[in-house]
C-alpha cells in the first residue's frame, strides 16, 4: 500500500493527470504538444481531446501542481506554456507509486497474460 491511494471512481482523471505530469517532467510544453506527445508516446493508446485537456490543466494550475505562463517569441504567436512545479514533482511521484500499487493489486486478481 502507498500513502496515496487512487479513487476507483476517479481513475480516468487520475490517469490523465499522471500522463500530463509525466510528460511535463521532461520539460515545459504547450497544450497541443502535450496532447500529441502523450498520443505518440503511448503508441496511440491515449488519445487526448484538447477539450478534456484544458479543465485538467487549469485545475492542476490552480492547485499549484503546474505553472502556466504566456510565452511570446519575437514575431510569433502568444502561447501558453506549462511547467511542473516542485509540488507537481512530489504529486507525480505519489501518482506513480499509487498506479504501480493499483496495477499490482489488479494483476493479483485477474492474473497476468500468458507469454
Amino acid at each position, binding site marked *: 500500500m502507498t500513502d496515496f491511494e487512487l479513487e476507483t471512481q476517479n481513475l480516468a482523471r487520475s490517469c490523465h493527470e499522471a500522463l500530463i505530469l509525466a510528460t511535463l517532467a521532461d520539460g515545459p510544453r504547450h497544450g497541443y504538444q502535450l496532447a500529441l506527445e502523450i498520443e505518440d508516446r503511448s503508441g496511440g493508446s491515449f488519445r487526448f481531446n*484538447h*477539450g*478534456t485537456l*484544458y479543465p485538467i490543466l487549469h485545475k492542476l494550475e490552480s492547485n499549484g501542481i503546474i505553472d502556466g505562463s504566456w510565452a511570446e517569441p519575437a514575431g510569433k*504567436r502568444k502561447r*501558453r506554456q506549462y511547467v511542473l512545479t516542485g509540488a507537481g514533482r512530489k504529486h507525480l511521484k505519489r501518482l506513480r507509486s499509487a498506479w504501480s500499487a493499483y496495477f499490482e493489486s489488479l494483476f493479483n486478481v485477474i492474473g497476468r497474460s500468458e507469454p
Partner: protein
Amino acid sequence: MSRFNLFLHRTGERLALPKATRSLILVEIASDLEDLFNHYVQQGMTEEEAAARAEEKVDMSDEALAELVRVHSDARGWTDRIVRRVQPFWERFAMALIVLFFVTEWVIGTGLKPFAHLTGFIWPILVIFIALLTFFIVQMARFSDHPSPRRLRDSLATPLFLGAASLVVGFAGAGIELYRTLMNMAADHEHAAPLFANVVLDSTATLSVALLVALAAGVAWFILAGRVARLEDDVTRRFLEVK
C-alpha cells in the same frame, strides 16, 4: 486566427466566466487550434481538412466546459461577481454611503463611549487593525509599480482573514468574559447584577469595535479587489491587442 473565429465565438458564448478570464482561455484555445492546424497540414491534409480536424480535436463537451467554469469559479467566482458588478460610479457611491451611515451611527449612537468600556481583548483587535491598515497602505502603493495582477490577487485574502480574525477575537473575548463573570456571580450573589451589567457593557463595547474593524477589512478588500479586477482587465486588453 480568423480561420477559427466562428468556432472561438461559439466556444466563448458557452463559457460563463468573467470577460478577462474567458478571453485568456480563448487565446489559449486559438493558439492550440493554429498549432494543430499547422501540424495536420504538415501531415498532408488540405487546409479545409486540417481546420475541421483541429476544431474537432479542440471541441469541448458541455461537461468539459462546465468543469472549466467550475475551476475558474471555485476560488474567485463570487468575489469577481461582487467586485465587477459594483463598478459603476453610482453603485460605488451607494456602497460608500451605506458604510458611512454605519460608521456615523456607531460614533453618534454610542458617543464613542465604547472606548471607556473595553475588555483586554481590545489589544489583539487593535493589533489586527494596525496590520490591516499597514497592509492596505502597502498594497495601494504597489499599484503604482506595475505589479503582477496574480500576486496582488493572491494577497486579497489577507484583509478578509484579518476581518474574520477580528470577529473571532471579539466573539471569543465576549464569551470568555461572560464565563468569567458568571463564575464571579456564582461566588458573589450580592453583586451579581452590577457584575452582569458591567460584563455585558464591556463585551458589547469590545465586540462593536471588532465589528467595526471587520467592516474596515471588508471595505479594504472591496477597494483592493476592484483595483485588481481593473488591472487584470487592462492587462488582458493589452494582451489581446493585435500587433
